């Protein structure tokens, strides 16, 4: 099973890095690694905005923000920032090995 390295910067400033299996999304990866502040209420159906992250470092271009994600991001808590994404919409793919996400 292929894995990639994902790092979350938590709300208290500390970092947590984990090996994440490719194929799933980064909201699920956060839940698997008990990342505080990522709830993922709607299970990735783009209905809750509780998987909000800010991209700190991306090793490759991320997929574009779809209109639905864009709309939902406007409801994110805390408020949307440049670089904000809903992590259920980001797949763990090999190109993203080394990605760094901040939990806002």
């Amino acid at each position, binding site marked *: 099973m292929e894995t990639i390295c994902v790092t979350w910067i938590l709300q208290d400033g500390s970092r947590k890095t984990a090996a994440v299996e490719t194929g799933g999304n980064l909201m699920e990866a956060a839940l698997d690694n008990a990342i505080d502040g990522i*709830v993922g*209420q*709607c*299970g*990735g*159906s*783009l*209905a*809750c905005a*509780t998987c909000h992250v800010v991209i700190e470092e991306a090793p490759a271009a991320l997929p574009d923000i779809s209109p*639905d994600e864009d*709309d*939902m991001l*406007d*409801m994110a808590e805390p408020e949307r920032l440049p670089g904000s994404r809903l992590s259920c919409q980001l797949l763990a793919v090999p190109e993203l090995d080394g990605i760094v996400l901040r939990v806002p």
Partner: protein
Amino acid sequence: MSTAPVYEIDPKTFWQDPYPDLKRMRAEAPIAYVPQLGATLLTRRDDIFENEKKVEIFSSDQPQGLMTVLMGQNLMRKDGAAPMAERKAIFPSVSPKTVKSVWKAQFEEKTAEALEELRPLGTADMVKDVAKRVSGEALKAITGLTNMSWQEMDRVSQGMIDGCANYAGDPEVEARCHDCTGSIDRHIDGMMPLLREAPDSSMLSVQMQAGLPEEAVRANIKLTISGGQNEPRDVIAGLVWTMLTHPEQLALVRDGKATWLQAFEEYARWISPIGMSPRRVAQRYEAKGVTFEPEDRVFLMFGSGNRDEAVFEDPERFDIARDTSHSIAFGAGPHFCAGAWASRCLIAEVALPMIFERLPGLALAGEVPFGGWAFRGPLEMPVTWDAAGIS
């Protein structure tokens, strides 16, 4: 039947107040088979949260289920890619953006109308006269069935809910349910030509614009009506009661120390309007030492998970300042409530602030009985306010 430990309930007591039994189940048998309900109950928040996502095991697809027979195959009763595509098709009618730019103004107008009409009377039933109407008007707008009265909206919603819970097969209940779905179909027939001419953001119109098969369009409108009337109604009235009986919490909102949105989220956690969502076991599965067999009925007990002492401190206490982000009042998976944003707007931004603003001196004027465990809310709620001082 699953191998879960058996927990017996008295159906009547459980209906009146399920919380003491649910508390015992969480402590003694968090996954329990309840013979009176013919189902295995998941009562802990994290068990529900984890397992609801396993749709290949806990399926909401119930081809023989009452809901499908009575209402058609809607997206709640499907798993996998098909409902995702349908959810995408209805999204434009319930998205946060549409709620803000289209529905909010209509919610305000209709709520103001209702309150202005009642205001001079100085007395009303908060459930029947206010919450039902505000909720029904909102659902008319969102679904696109503006040719229906709010009273009819409430009737057809209740008729379908009763029909879906009619496990005993009472022919009268079934006939009433058919009458209600028939009424919805006639109202859809009436609106379709108009919306073809002048498309709008309603759920009926956006599904037509997306080219969904008519059968699916109709089934999804029925699902939305069965799932979109009671909950806002029960929360509007229930939250008014809660604030009147917890004046210190009301003061927090009035003094700007907390928001109506916090009050809404905490109420939906504390007395979840949808306490349960049913699932069917699709394949043999083991969790926490319990074996589930195919065709077992499983109830996800959202109302219990929301009082799980492992997740919420002092869960029986209504406290609008608490962190409610782990609440599962809107579900916890791929069937997450499509109306969540509309409800937040309707209740926290429109109904509650308007009720407390436009009915000065609002007070309870009698007993307020609550009932239900699958759906829970106040049954009636006599209130008075100061009509004399109003210009």
